[in-house]
């Protein structure tokens, strides 16, 4: 069995292709270091992210989910991120009520030019996940 100290959180990122994905790309090309804990799925818009994706990721054992899109007003499709904002708000708050640590469900606005912010967000979220420990929510024995 792995030692607790060896455990590294797995973070699933849903990144909007227009802003946050480009931001992540920029972070990479400008050689900014962010934790390798994040696995990235490119989505057309943060508004594409169904709360089901988040639950499914947690069910499959991801320790946290990050949804990242364009800043309000910057959505390539005008309103996608506004809708994502409502969805994320109720998902996060409702799941907190049900018993999911809100640290596991994160959202951010990262623009295409914010390689630095992307690095910070991922670092911060990963740090938070390390603090709260592995996701055992759906394990039969916790």
């Amino acid at each position: 069995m792995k030692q607790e100290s060896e455990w590294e959180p797995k973070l699933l990122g849903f990144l909007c292709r227009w802003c946050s994905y480009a931001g992540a790309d920029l972070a990479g090309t400008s050689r900014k270091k962010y934790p390798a804990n994040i696995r990235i799925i490119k989505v057309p818009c943060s508004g594409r992210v169904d709360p089901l994706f988040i639950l499914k990721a947690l069910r499959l054992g991801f320790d946290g989910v990050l949804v990242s899109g364009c800043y309000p007003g910057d959505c390539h499709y005008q309103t996608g991120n506004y809708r994502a904002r409502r969805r994320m708000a109720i998902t996060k708050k409702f799941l907190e009520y049900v018993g999911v640590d809100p640290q596991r469900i994160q959202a951010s606005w990262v623009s295409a030019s914010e390689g630095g912010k992307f690095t910070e967000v991922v670092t911060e979220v990963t740090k938070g996940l390390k603090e709260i420990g592995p996701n055992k929510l759906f394990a039969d024995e916790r």
Partner: protein
Amino acid sequence: MKDRETEQRLRREAKALLEQGKVDYIIGFETGSLKFTTTPLITKDKDSVDRLIINPFIVNNLSEYLTELKGRVGIVAKGCDNRSIVSLIQDNQVKREDVVILGVPCPGIIDLSKVEGLVGKDRDELDDVTRDGDKVVVTVDGEKKEFPASEVLFDNCLGCEFPTPQEYNILLDESSSLVADKTASRKGIETLEGMPQEQRWDFWEKEFSRCIRCYACRSICPACFCERCFVEESEPQWIAPVPRWQDNLIFQVIRNIHVAGRCTDCGECERACPVNIPLRSLTKEMYDLVDDLYHFKAGMDKEAAPLMTHYETTDPEDFIK
């Protein structure tokens, strides 16, 4: 007594609607086959409207049937049902001109399980249960027992904000007053909120381990109007078809997200559940959550956009990094 007058008026109005061809169907309540129960009456026949009743047990949210009936429908609606109808109109599931709403101001519905608990007898062993203003009188073995209405009404009725329909064609009675007990109505939620996070999750694990996937919560919910539900998708398969608590819980969380801004706290999901899962402790929380976040109450304004298709630039985003 008042119910009797409302009932007479309802029968007259319903008959007239059918006779004048203003509606194709009437949906209301008739006497059920078990003691005290009522059952939906869905009819085209003008003679059967004489079976329509109004009493303290008319529990079903009849708007559930609107999406499957073709033609124009005259429907009996209490406060919460009425909001469900409005919500269906907002979602383009029902056209306003296709429904004739026969509004019934609702003083709250008697929860027979609570009565059973209080008197220690099953419903079929009770002689009579009657409502008298703020009191409910239960006759058992010839003996009358009085209870404050707040002890025997459904939890959701105690939290009801709009007992009198706002959107109607005919209002069958004057507005109804509330027997509100907001605290009692949120009792389950308060208990949960008092628990540490992990304990809440454990609570739901235990509750959803009992689920038998009858989907009555979904079937009875007027806001669950999708023709095809995500749980039946197989590519990808979102929910394991094997009824495990984990997937049962995911189903219910997502169902709540889907009905956010549509749920009127009619309480039907919890009442229908054959294995007593306290579903209203989820739905009512979501109901309050969208009210807190977006000042949105389901089914208040037929012109309003559905909550989740709409946004304000000023929506809260303090949780976003």
